[in-house]
């Protein structure tokens, strides 16, 4: 960590998206009938199941592929996925929990200053792009980190990218300076 810089930033992970497979066919009607907290969407061909603890929403397809969203950490996502698999087991399916993989991570961060998006985009072409008519935030893509940052004029940042997981630990509130944040500051052109 860069100790000479006494800046710190709260980066809060708000969503972790993970997928896993059950290696068996699932009857969506049975799940819809016998499961609570379930929404059946026959037109799309999936079932939405919501768990209370951890707060997770899962999209279940009949092929056995399941996508979990709403967890706030990787471990929570895994726990939620296992709970779900166990639930499906109890419903009578021969579930084998396999191929668990975190697919995407979304974090938010709030800076205590406003950002003039037009100047920001001008200074950071072509990495940054800003179309006020389409979206109020400027999109900034860091290729080598495979992360996308949306910068709002209020100073809020929304960061999306799997690489975050390897750099941020799994606690909800992270208060340390990461190389990522340093890079961000450099890209934004902040002066100390």
């Amino acid at each position, binding site marked *: 960590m860069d100790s000479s810089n006494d800046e710190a930033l709260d980066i809060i992970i708000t969503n972790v998206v993970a997928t896993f497979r059950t290696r068996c066919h699932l009857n969506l009607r049975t799940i819809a*009938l016998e499961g609570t907290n379930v929404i059946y969407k026959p037109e799309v061909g999936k079932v939405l199941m919501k768990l209370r603890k951890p707060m997770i929403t899962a999209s279940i397809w009949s092929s056995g592929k399941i996508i979990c969203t709403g967890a*706030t950490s990787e471990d929570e996502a895994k*726990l939620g996925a296992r709970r779900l698999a166990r639930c499906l087991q109890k419903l009578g399916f021969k579930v084998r929990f396999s191929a668990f993989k975190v697919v995407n991570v979304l974090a938010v961060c709030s800076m205590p*200053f406003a950002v*003039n998006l037009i100047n920001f985009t*001008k200074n950071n072409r072509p990495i940054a792009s800003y179309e006020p008519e389409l979206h109020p935030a400027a999109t900034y893509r860091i290729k080598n980190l495979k992360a996308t940052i949306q910068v709002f*004029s209020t100073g809020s940042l929304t960061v999306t990218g799997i690489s975050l997981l390897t750099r941020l630990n799994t606690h909800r509130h992270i208060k340390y300076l990461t190389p990522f944040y340093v890079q961000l500051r450099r890209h934004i052109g902040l002066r100390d």
Partner: protein
Amino acid sequence: MAAAGMRCPACGSTNIVDDDLYSQAQLVCVDCGSVVSEGVLANDPVGGSDVSFSRTTAVAKRPCTNLIKGELLPSKRSFSLLLQCNSVLLLVHFLKWICFTHTGQQRVKAICRILMVNREIEDLSQTCRQLNWPITVGTISCLLDADSMAVGAIYQEMVKNLSIEAPIINVTDVIEAHCHEYKISSLDVPEEMAENSRDLTKRAVALVELAADSWIVTGRKPIPIMMAVTYLAWQSLKPNKHRLKFSLDKFCQVAKVKKLKSAMKRVAEIKEVLCKLGKEIPWVRETVTPDNVIQLVECILQNRYALLRRAMRTHEDALLEESQASCAEAPPEGTASSQISECADQAPIMSFVKQNGLNSDGKEKPGDVDYNPRVLPKHSDTQESQNPPPNWGKRVLFAPPCVIHAKKRRAVQPEHTDVTGDEEISDSEIDSYIRTPQEARDFALMQHMLSLSDSAKS
């Protein structure tokens, strides 16, 4: 079809055919071309005849060889002809044809190929570069009669595929074109409501610059802002009772422009900023409210930089007094020292405040806030470190409106205990997610009854 037993009165031929034009039934002699008889328009089937116009008037029509589905490769000549027309509308019609007759990916490929053929045109929104006329995505989607999000998506794909850098259009560039749309010249409306387009544009540009300096423009859609400034400019050019009574709705009706919902909010925000500046005018005695600020707009705009500086200074002084007062009240736990410096920047603008926040209670607050010459005093109040961190927007004079009027956040979720992901899962937890057999039967019965009642109703 020949009409049996008829003779043409002009040439006596019996070769008479039923020539159904899209508008009218007619009997025409093939040999001499004279119309033997025509049907009454009123007798034609409702909704037009059975034969569509394009089929009746088609004479061995082939699609233009250039515009074959998925194989759009316009010849250089036809495209340069297109450019020579120097007409946006022609290009728009061309693009409309592409957009509505081909699917997404094909469209983009087609447009990219066209644009690559002629490298003079770099960008869709800068198509009018030849005319030096910036247009917005909104205008294009209006012309194409398409959803602006769809147009925007295609535009972004194009920019990516062509690897072009589209220059960002500032609101001030587009406002002139926008003002021209408003039909409030003396030809269209009574004299008391009429306004010269040039004056209107000038006033609107000044208002937009002020709005940009006070964080109203960044991050917002440009068109509602332009509508708001045009309305305020119109009101302030002749701030008599008649004009002040006009609401945004009525103004848009008179000017024959479609009103946008968010324009009302922008009007309120800009009026707020104008009030903040109006308070600083030395010779104004009465309280400045959003109702009476319009009369002062001209004066405010003429002296806006001076007023901005005054307002910032007043605000800083007020903050300093407040922090001194709060420090004097409570025992000092760690004083927040503020260095306030004022500095005028190159082009327009104002002072910025530089402050150093200090740590207290181990809670770190962001310190230095000098990065953008545009504003942002941040005051870290140590007394409030026990409460949720104060919204920095409430402490500054100008900030994006959604920071100043921040929504109340829900109570922060309690910290989850450390989760490893591999814990044991007890049966009781899982059972809460599964219906008992009786419940399942009841549920099935209820669904069955509901579906029966639905089918009975319909």
